[in-house]
């Protein structure tokens, strides 16, 4: 059993509160992603689980044991560092065997485990090399191998892919997910890259300024962000935010952004009651704004005529950088669009997917 549980965990460095009252349960065999901008406290959280940083307040459990005062070596965890941290004076074999040797495993067992891990990672032919004779991708694999041979209760990974080039990163993303299926262990994975978070994890924890913002499955967070920060951080290109007022007219609900207005679905009545005639933040993802030419029977009360500043063809689709009055936003539309730089074009807002946020608290209106 390798559940990890953080109970009201706080970490202070002098006056800096790196992690603020974090409570979080990581289930056995779960692939959990900690994601957030740089400096938000992800690494600190991970390092507290590893035992490399002391907890200022609160408790950390691994299994059913409080590990606050247990040194890293006795926590039965393995860690993959962002810069790999391979031992430069040892060859690949000994880098992987080091942890087992320290734990006094029999020689035959060490050999078996190292060779198995090397086979899984496809690095059998590198075992005699020193780290400096390896490419970035190969070092990455050795770092993973060093963790795998230990067969620990929990894997901790701190931005393990961020030093790889883009192509290798995409490939390793899939391989890590596969590896997790194969090893069936708990993984806590830190990244600042929302794409990694969306594609790899069972659940995502979004952090900002030391606070946990939201915890949930990737699509749950994508579809139902709790606040403006999460909404803007998860998803690429980011969600558009426009200042607007909610209006009620003749039994209909409108989002009025001054220079244009679009109708909201009636189902929103239940949630927006107290916000009628008040200012809110209207959020809509780029893929929920379409080119009218490709939406048959688009309801006229959701059509907006926008000035197109820039078109960015991505191949399978086109990003339109559009303006209406004071508002700018991005739309992700069909690749066949006839919109051109400097032209004016009709766009459809799919307000069924609209997000509304309280202007003051930045929280989602639900």
């Amino acid at each position, binding site marked *: 059993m390798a559940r990890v549980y953080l109970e009201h965990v706080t970490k202070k460095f002098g006056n800096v509160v790196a992690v603020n009252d974090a409570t979080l349960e990581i289930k056995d065999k779960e692939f959990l992603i900690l994601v957030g901008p740089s400096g938000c406290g992800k690494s600190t959280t991970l390092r507290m689980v*590893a035992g490399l940083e002391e907890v200022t307040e609160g408790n950390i459990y691994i299994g059913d044991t409080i590990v606050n005062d247990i040194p890293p070596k006795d926590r039965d*965890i393995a860690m993959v560092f962002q810069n790999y941290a391979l031992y430069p*004076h040892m060859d690949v074999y000994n880098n992987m065997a080091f942890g087992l040797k320290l734990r006094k495993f029999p020689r035959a067992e060490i050999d078996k485990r190292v060779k198995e891990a090397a086979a899984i990672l496809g690095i059998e032919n590198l075992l005699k090399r020193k780290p400096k004779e390896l490419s970035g991708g190969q070092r990455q694999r050795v770092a993973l191998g060093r963790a795998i041979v230990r067969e620990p209760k929990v894997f901790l990974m701190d931005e393990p892919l961020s030093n790889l080039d883009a192509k290798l990163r995409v490939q390793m993303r899939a391989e890590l997910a596969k590896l997790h299926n194969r090893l069936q262990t708990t993984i806590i994975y830190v990244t600042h890259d929302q794409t990694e978070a969306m594609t790899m994890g069972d659940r995502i924890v979004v952090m900002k300024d030391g606070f946990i913002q939201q915890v949930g499955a990737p699509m749950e967070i994508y579809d139902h962000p709790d606040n403006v920060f999460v909404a803007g951080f998860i998803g690429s290109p980011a969600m558009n935010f426009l200042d607007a007022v909610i209006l009620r007219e003749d039994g209909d609900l409108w989002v009025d952004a001054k220079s244009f207005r679009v109708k909201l679905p009636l189902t929103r009545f239940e949630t927006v009651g107290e916000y009628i005639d008040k200012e809110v933040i209207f959020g809509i993802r780029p893929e929920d704004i379409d080119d009218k030419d490709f939406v048959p029977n688009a309801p006229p009360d959701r059509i907006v005529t926008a000035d197109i500043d820039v078109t960015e063809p991505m191949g399978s689709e086109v990003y339109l950088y559009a303006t209406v009055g004071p508002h700018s936003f991005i739309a992700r539309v069909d690749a066949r669009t006839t919109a051109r730089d400097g032209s004016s074009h009709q766009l459809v807002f799919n307000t069924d997917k609209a997000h509304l946020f309280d202007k003051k608290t930045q929280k989602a209106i639900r």
Partner: protein
Amino acid sequence: MRTGSRRSVFRRARGDSPAKRAVIHAVLILACVMSVYPFLRVVSVSLRPSNQLLSTDLALIPPGASLENYRALIFERDFTIWLWNSLVVSAASVLVGLMLAATAAYAFSRWKFPGRRQGLLFLLTTQMIPAGMLLLPIYIMVVRLKLFNTYTGMAIAYSVGSVPFSIWILKGYYDTIPRELEEAALVDGASPLVAFYRVVIPLSTPALAIAGLFSFMTAWNDYMMARVMLQKPNMFTWPVGFQKLMDQFQTAWGQFAAASVLVAIPALALFLYSSKWLVSGMTLGGVKE
């Protein structure tokens, strides 16, 4: 064709013109000759039979060359005892000095504690005190500790001199070793002490070699401290012993030269041996910057 390609190889190696290279080589060769020549003269003197000691002959191998001086030195004097004493004392001060410096430097490099900055500065200021000033206090301490005329006393006295320098060298080197390497070891199952000697120490060999050489040469070449601290002739280190070759009615210059040649050998061997540890760049590749 062939010369053309060879010239291009040289070009690639250094962008200097042939004339400039010639000058550089000339200067280097001259410097080599100037530093090696006195040593060769000493070798030459050591080979002279005693009746030609004051000869002004400049031949490197003198007429009638013999190993008589070496024989006399080794079998009729206490030279081997002096050499042995020097070796023991020097090796002991390297060992004691490195052990103290390696651990102290680690603390200075890795932990924040009150007095850390002041401590480092203090170590530096000790290096500015002339060695002569330390003679008396160290003498008194060694006598009080009843370590007068002992290897231990000498080793401690020499370590005191070289440890501050070694700490600075090692601390500077540890600072360049990424902390993640030790953290990886801690997670892998090492205690902090094990992480230190299984990861940090093996990676610090260039700095350890420099600090070790420095400690060795400090002890090996010292005359003043040994003169004060060693009274029993069977404890003499070679610099004190050499004095014995001079202070009889006449100086045995031939033996003196022979002894000089012999004591140069251990130091030379140590330099050659440690040069392989001086290769830096060991930490390359372990972490990605």
